[in-house]
């Protein structure tokens, strides 16, 4: 049996107080895609931070093949910082070592190729803060491509992006899977989770893990989202809507 690309065993993690995520155990083989579903505050980001090694597990263990690449939500980056799309892509080369020296020609070539792959060649010199939400997400993906990690963690990469960017990102995910890279993608989009190989549902604890056909049922989704879930179609395959309650107070409804 091959070694999993990601292996989590009995993980509990938090920020000094009681664990915000507990009882998480799953293995993901190389080249598989995982959609991590859960409400805001459910522990998705905490799981990613534990996988990145930023959070020491309060209990249990995590193992990742190599250093994973992390694509944050674009609003967590500094939009006022003076860098352009090419600079962002080039940041991925820091992961290859030699961080104290200027980037090599090969690094620059890799950054240009990554921007081309995410469809941002024409915007290489555009300041990051002036890109659209979808273009910013693609620039961060280009950084992950330059990093060339085997495991990629993506924090709600399709949240708030334009349809053209969403299509391009979906296509890129398929290509990365074809390269045997492992993707863990956090999302609120219940319906799009069906396109992944595996689904992990968390709500302070692991609610379910398995293929979409086994996990995406009303009982599991209700345990994951509680009152945030509305199931629209009782008869057919669950067509679910999540109502998001954001930290800054105003909620909105997403139909997926």
């Amino acid at each position, binding site marked *: 049996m091959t070694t999993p690309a990601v292996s989590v065993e009995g993980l509990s993690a938090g920020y000094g107080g009681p664990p915000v995520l507990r009882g998480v155990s799953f293995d993901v083989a190389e080249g598989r895609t995982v959609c991590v579903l859960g409400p805001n505050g459910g522990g998705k980001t905490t799981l990613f931070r534990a996988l990145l090694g930023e959070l020491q597990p309060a209990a249990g263990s995590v193992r990742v093949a190599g250093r994973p690449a992390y694509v944050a939500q674009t609003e967590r980056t500094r939009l006022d*910082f003076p*860098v352009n799309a090419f600079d962002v892509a080039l940041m991925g080369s*820091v992961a290859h070592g030699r961080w104290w020296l200027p980037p090599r020609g090969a690094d620059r070539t890799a950054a240009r190729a990554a921007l081309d792959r995410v469809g941002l060649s024409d915007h290489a010199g555009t300041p990051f803060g002036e890109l659209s939400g979808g273009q910013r997400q693609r620039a961060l993906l280009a950084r992950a491509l330059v*990093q060339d990690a085997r495991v990629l963690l993506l924090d709600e990469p399709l949240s708030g992006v334009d349809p053209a960017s969403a299509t391009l990102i979906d296509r890129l995910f398929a290509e990365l899977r074809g390269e045997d890279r492992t993707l863990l993608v956090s999302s609120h989009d219940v319906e799009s989770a069906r396109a992944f190989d595996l689904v992990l549902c968390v709500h302070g604890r692991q609610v379910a893990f398995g293929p979409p056909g086994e996990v995406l049922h009303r009982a599991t989704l209700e345990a994951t989202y509680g009152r945030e879930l509305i199931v629209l179609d009782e008869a057919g395959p669950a067509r679910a809507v999540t109502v998001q309650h954001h930290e800054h107070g105003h909620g909105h409804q997403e139909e997926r």
Partner: protein
Amino acid sequence: MSGIELRAMLELVLAGGFCGALGFWVVSERLTYSAESLSHGLLPGLVLAGLADAPLLLGAAGGAAVAAALIALAARDPRAGTDTGTAVAVTGLVGLGSLLALAPEAPQRLEELLFGDPLGVTTGDLVAAAVLLALGGAALAALHRPLVASSFDPGGAASLGLRPSLVRFALLALMAAAIAVAVQGLGALLVLAVLVAPAVAVRGHVRAPGAAMLTAAALAAVAGIAGIQLSSVAGTAAGASVALVLCAAAAAGALLPARGV
């Protein structure tokens, strides 16, 4: 132009050049209050060095180390909060420094320590500024890529193999070194101007961190020379004149419409 003025200009070009470049990161990482606290908090060290007839650089370095430790300790008190704890520690240190400086046996005038005396720089001060520019510049160049990656996306820096806390610690150490050297010429109150004003002036007008650092360094050097010239013509205090020119540049930069180059 006298030799004294030329030495003052050279000091401001060397120390000001480095502080201008470093200031981009100080402003970008929102460390301005820390820089101000450190520059004011090292006053007792400066005065004690003056009393003991020891090099002011030594006093500034020791004062900065003690101030940093006290500020860190006071800021940890959860009842007061970080800002309040820092303010109390810094005010106490400035009070202690003033008390020592106003003692009858104190050879250094408080005014010189607070406002600096660029016209009184020694050869040792110039050597210290040159070393700061060479070593500090090399450190900034080596840290450039980690600083850019950590500052742009602190959450994603760890996945690139960086440790943002270590990068920030290195930046704080460089800031302490810059203040300890530059305080000789500009004094405890005005040293902040050379560290922060050039970065504020170029902010929004430059589209790359490297270009922003170089532009801020050049601006600090030019403002230093202009300030000494101004003091010579107008008969005003040299350190205060330099600080005013720097702040005028910052105001002009902030008022001009942002336009990246």
